[in-house]
């Protein structure tokens, strides 16, 4: 009665090891291919390379991610005028940089907790950086909008 059990246990063990090896192999492959995915953190790659202005990105957000835009505007209107202006200046500064400097800025952004802009309004750049899907929609359409339409900052949220 003992003899048949052992080979069965062994073959089950072998099958288990084979399955485990196969799983490791298949998960290891995409891991190597995705090695550059950190290009999207902390600022999505599309925002690093876009040639759109801040206002073009906001205009695209208004039309293609309207709820995200609305929430950002509600958040913005709850800040003091000085903080709102500082956020606009910070966004203008970021998009005035070339891609290499934007990447450097992004590294600094996640390490410098004493940054006064972030301290005053932690989500000041949420509409630009926080969500890859939002960034994708914004950069897909931003080129269709005028580059200097400041009215995109002055959206009065729905009541």
């Amino acid at each position, binding site marked *: 009665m003992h003899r048949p059990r052992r080979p069965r246990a062994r073959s089950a063990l072998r099958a288990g090891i084979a399955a485990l090896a196969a799983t490791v192999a298949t998960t290891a492959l995409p891991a190597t291919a995705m090695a550059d995915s950190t290009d999207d953190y902390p600022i999505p790659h599309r925002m690093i390379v876009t040639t759109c202005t801040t206002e073009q990105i906001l205009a695209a957000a*208004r*039309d*293609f991610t*309207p*709820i995200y835009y*609305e929430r950002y505007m509600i958040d913005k209107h709850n800040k003091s005028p000085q903080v709102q202006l500082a956020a606009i200046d910070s966004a203008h500064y970021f998009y005035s940089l070339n891609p290499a400097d934007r990447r450097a800025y992004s590294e600094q952004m996640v390490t410098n907790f004493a940054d006064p802009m972030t301290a005053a309004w932690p989500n000041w750049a949420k509409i630009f950086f926080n969500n890859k899907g939002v960034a994708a929609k914004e950069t897909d359409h931003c080129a269709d909008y005028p580059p200097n339409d400041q009215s995109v900052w002055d*959206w*009065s*949220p*729905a009541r």
Partner: protein
Amino acid sequence: MRLTKLSVLVVVGAAIVALAAPTHADPDTDFANQLHGQGIYGPLDYNAWLGKITCERLRNGLDTTADKSAHFALINLPRDTSTAQSYQFLAAAISTYCPDQVPILTAAAARHQ
């Protein structure tokens, strides 16, 4: 992507009927129910936001015609939404959240005649 004369008239007619419909305490639920009647589904909160923002864009003068407003709805509703459904969404949004904007629907109907 223009609607036929008949379908715009039907949408406007439905909006005016909806205005007279009894409402519940929660306009967002009423709005969702109207949308379900048109085969437009999706999260209640998302659609309510979209409806309110549609009204806000009309009030702010960003969307100056019903066609522009329906286009805004179309690009933010699920991919399989038809043009007719985007006008139905607009009509439902106006009747629920900004009945003062009904003239934009009647203007669209007149233009399509």
